């Protein structure tokens, strides 16, 4: 069982306090919102995808717990520069790590969220921004 110390690793608390890319995008091409009706948390994810299908910029806004804010923050840094196909693939890997506890050797810094899998009630917090990102990609403005 992952300890709470593992769940609230300093990196998660640090991203909660200083979230990266917490801003409105100038010229977003895609946007979607996610909402957790259980707690009222909400997140809006915006992306600018260039003609080559690459994520040129990504940002998020909203309010939520440390897990969801840190997850949104680290998602934006992980996805910037990736292609839309790569972003979708990373969604699947992140999702399966949290919901099925699947090993994801190349997931990099996102590994810090593995401990969340031990807390089913909190998995939604970590995946909320990812679902919003996936919805946004299906949602050209």
């Amino acid at each position, binding site marked *: 069982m992952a300890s*709470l110390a593992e769940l609230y690793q300093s990196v998660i*608390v640090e991203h909660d*306090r200083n979230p990266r890319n917490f801003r409105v995008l100038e010229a977003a091409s895609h946007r979607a919102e996610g909402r957790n009706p*259980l707690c*009222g*948390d909400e997140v809006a994810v915006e992306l600018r995808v260039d003609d080559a299908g690459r994520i040129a910029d990504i940002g998020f806004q909203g309010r939520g717990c440390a*897990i969801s804010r840190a997850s949104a923050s680290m998602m934006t840094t992980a996805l910037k520069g990736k292609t839309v196909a790569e972003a979708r693939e990373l969604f699947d890997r992140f999702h399966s790590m949290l919901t099925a506890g699947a090993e994801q050797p190349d997931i990099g810094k996102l590994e810090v969220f593995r401990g969340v899998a031990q*807390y089913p009630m*909190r998995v939604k*917090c970590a995946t909320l921004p990812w679902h919003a990102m996936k919805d946004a990609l299906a949602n050209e403005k």
Partner: protein
Amino acid sequence: MVTVSSLTGARAGFDTARIRADFPILAGTSRGVPLVYLDSAASAQKPAVVIDAMSRFYRADYANIHRGVYDLSERSTRAWDEARARVARFIGAPSPEGVVFVRGTTEAINLVASSFVRPRLGDGGTVLVTEMEHHGNIVPWQLAGARTVPVPVTDSGELDLAAAGRLLATRPLLFAVTHVSNVLGTINPIAELCEMAHRHGVPVLVDGAQAVPHQPVTVGELECDFYCFSGHKLFGPTGIGVLWSREDHLAAMPPYQGGGDMIDEVRFDRTTFAPPPRRFEAGTPDIAGAVGLRAAIDWLEAQDRAAIHRHEAELRDHAMAVLAATPGARAIGSAPEKAAVIAFTMERAHPHDIASLLDADGICVRAGHHCAQPLHRRFGVEATARASFAAYNTHAEIDALAAGLAKVRKVFG
């Protein structure tokens, strides 16, 4: 922290150990450490006498009610009728005929919305509610087609009585108000509110879900029109609850659901209905639930309720002192008449993170909007963490909460 430790000193007169011994689950663990259950406002734990009464009923006395002429069905029917009579005595109702068994407070309110408010709506109408209502006392009125207008709540978490008076003067169809707020803990002056409402000819429904477990309630003294509560918050089982209604209202109300047991005579061209309360109890009800509810009421009334009330007030004061001594913590709701329910926030720590960190130490608190989004909006927050207490909680458990909050501060400092 000096105030806190001084509060945990000797307290004479209340034997929590004896009460706790009645609740098997409290001897258990959570996350490998002893369970600290601070979520009784969501649902109370069950004494062994409740669990045993239901088990005994299923093992020895169970059959459907009002159907068989055989002995077993008679015994089951008797258990059902006795449970109704026990509930009537418990809330000081003039007779058992005003007691309708439902699934819980939510169904009680939906029943009144459907059978009392909807037939009076015409081209629209208003149900006066309050800003501190649970969604269960807002949404049913909206679904019935009524407009919900709220009585405002003051900064200390009390109802604005002057505003209530003005709004009652507009003669809404009904005033639906909670007896005790599930977030603020505020105990509303129900008798006074009923008197105000009746002066304008407005009937009153009281959501008593948070009140009946913690204070004696006499519907005759409150002079309300409807009073509802759930079994599961009263140390009883889930799936059973009570709508008490003035009998003249019930007699004039159309059925809520159709089915077996609620009829007088069924024909294809014309069906007539049974008198209340059976008119409102279609289908096979939760018979064992009623047996369990009766056992819960028996258990509660065998306790020294005045002593429990004092004990809960001390737990509340202790927990409020802990929050006051925790930098960055803020309790929402400081009404002079406050039950042992405390919603709070902490700077930089989201309520879900507070609850997860406390959970690691086996401490169960609720986090979120507690089905009261308009109230949270009123206080400018999306969510709170909530600790709520019952007879079986101890001061040592509040010390555990204090230690847990110190850990939260350390992580989110």
